[in-house]
């Protein structure tokens, strides 16, 4: 399951151009309903608002626990906007699209 998600992820990141304006990283911990919901929501939002200009990387902390430290991840799922600066974090299953867009600075507060 996990590998499938990963492969999906890599595929989706390959789909976008190399010079993605938006570099997003989604931290999950296994295939929990929250994490799956977050990934689905993220894909939808990107397709709608960041078509062609974003890359998504999914990190499963159960596989790579040491990566949690780098981005200061506590909550799961957490979406990290690595680019553009500054770094933004959105936690939760990303079910509220409005707030996700606000969090990604795609919409004014």
């Amino acid at each position, binding site marked *: 399951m996990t590998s499938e998600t990963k492969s999906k992820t890599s595929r989706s990141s390959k789909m976008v151009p190399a010079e993605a304006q938006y570099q997003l990283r989604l*931290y999950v*911990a296994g295939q*929990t309903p*929250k994490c799956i*919901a*977050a990934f689905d929501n993220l894909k939808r939002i990107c397709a709608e608002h960041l078509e062609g200009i974003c890359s998504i990387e999914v990190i499963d*902390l*159960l596989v790579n*626990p*040491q990566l*949690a*430290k780098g981005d*200061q*991840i*506590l*909550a*799961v*799922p*957490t979406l990290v906007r690595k680019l553009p600066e*500054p*770094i*933004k*974090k*959105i*936690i*939760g*299953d*990303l*079910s*509220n699209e409005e*707030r*996700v867009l*606000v*969090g990604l600075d795609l919409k004014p507060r």
Partner: protein
Amino acid sequence: MATKKKTEALAKCPTGIKGLDQITGGGLPQGRPTLVCGGTGCGKTLLAMEFLIRGATEFGEPGVYMSFEEKSEELAKNFASLGFDLDDLAARKKIALDYVHIERSEIEETGEYDLAGLFIRLGHAIDSIRAKRVAIDTVEALFSGFANEVILRAELRRLFGFLKSKGVTAVITGEQGEKSLTRFGLEEYVADCVIFLSHKVDQQIATRRLRIVKYRGSAHGTNEYPFLIDEQGFSVIPISSIGLDHSASVERVFTGIPRLDTMLGGKGYFRGSSILVTGTAGTGKSSMAAHFIDAACRRGERCLYFAFEESRNQIIRNMRSIGINLEQWVNKGLLEFRNSRPTLYGLEMHLVTMHKAIESFKPAIVVVDPISNLVAAASDMEVKSMLSRLIDFLKMKGITAFCTDLTAVGGSLERTDVGISSLMDTWLLLQFIEGSGERNRGLYILKSRGMEHSNQVREFRLTDNGAQLQDVYVGSGGVLTGAGRVAQEARERAEALERSQDIERKQRDIERKKAVIEAQIAALRTEFEAEKDELERSIARERLHQKVLAEETQALAQSRKADDLSSKKVSTAKGGKGARK
């Protein structure tokens, strides 16, 4: 499997922190979380860190430190100042540090989440070094990072469960709340052991205290125990962990003042006893201490002098004026001074520094000069509590304690400021006795447990050759000391001299009278002899005269041819004789 260990007592995890293991009866509950709460700057972080470091260095239990407040580098620096090399321990995989940074402004919340990331990080850190101990400092920071308190509380509960399931002994710190022990009520999640730290400032002097609020399944000390943080870390001083079961020595030590030894049954103080000298300012308390030290050092014993009033050099100079050279003992390493102002730090800090000094110097005699000054650093009750612990400690170690106490002028002399006289075995009182326009020192023994002691007042004189005790004048003129005593003694000497002269004179009179009488007798005898001669001579003359007269009569009769009266007489006498025949 779990039920197999049912009957076993609660396993404890030693903290290695001086005193804390004593209070908790062995340490924190093994494999369970302990909550350490208290206000800002009360030492929570240090307690947590020291728990880990001692575990890693002394008990072979690696530990994970998760900090929400300070970065790893900052922590390493903080602990370097206390003598712990965090980086080295981290490199040797004894300690794992994880700095958790939460920046609320970076975070947007949408929908459901949990803190699996935290667990994963913690779990990863624990697994990476096979940690047995965990410290989380302070988990409450999460409340400022996340808005959803419902999720947080559920996750906290899960966190404590997670820690238990990992089998680690955890210390979780929490900020003190206004009404509750912790601001966010963490104590409701940690049911096993709660330690409360406080840092109270009283009269501008801060004292740290520790209290075990709760320790499920274990007996523990319930008092507020003072503790302190110094260059060697955390130390807790149990108030009453030292009982009254110290041994009592029958060995005696000389006081350094021979006549005082005499007053104390001829042998001085008991070794390991506590001696209190009270008196008003300038009565010679420190001088008595110096004598005691001098005598001890001469025997080759080690002395530790805690001076709260004078500097080391001042004491040495002053004692030289009464002929005691303390410097030689300092140079020989037999005497050590610890000078500090009482207000320099809190009482407990004093106690602990004293403890440490005593532990390292291992003296036979400890002088505290004066204990009354400590009152400046705390309340009477605290001083009493501190001194009783100090004296207990010294007694347990068999160290003779010599304390001086300054009595306030106007106060009752037979009362110590801090009411500790009952703790003392021997109590000497130095007092000024006023009279004849001067003040002199008087020494009394108010009590001396377990030995015969004099009830007499002695005059205490400080001379070039040290302190000396003299009998006071007790007589018709009352009790006299000093010049009054000297004058009275002179007067008595004069009177005695006069009396002896009187006797001599009378004896001479007798002699003279005897001589006179004897002379008279001699004169009379001479006179008698003279008269006797005269009379004898006259008797002889008379006899001669008589004879001459008789001869003359006979001659005359012959010449007259008178009857031979004499022959007639003779014949008649003859005839008479014959006739009668």
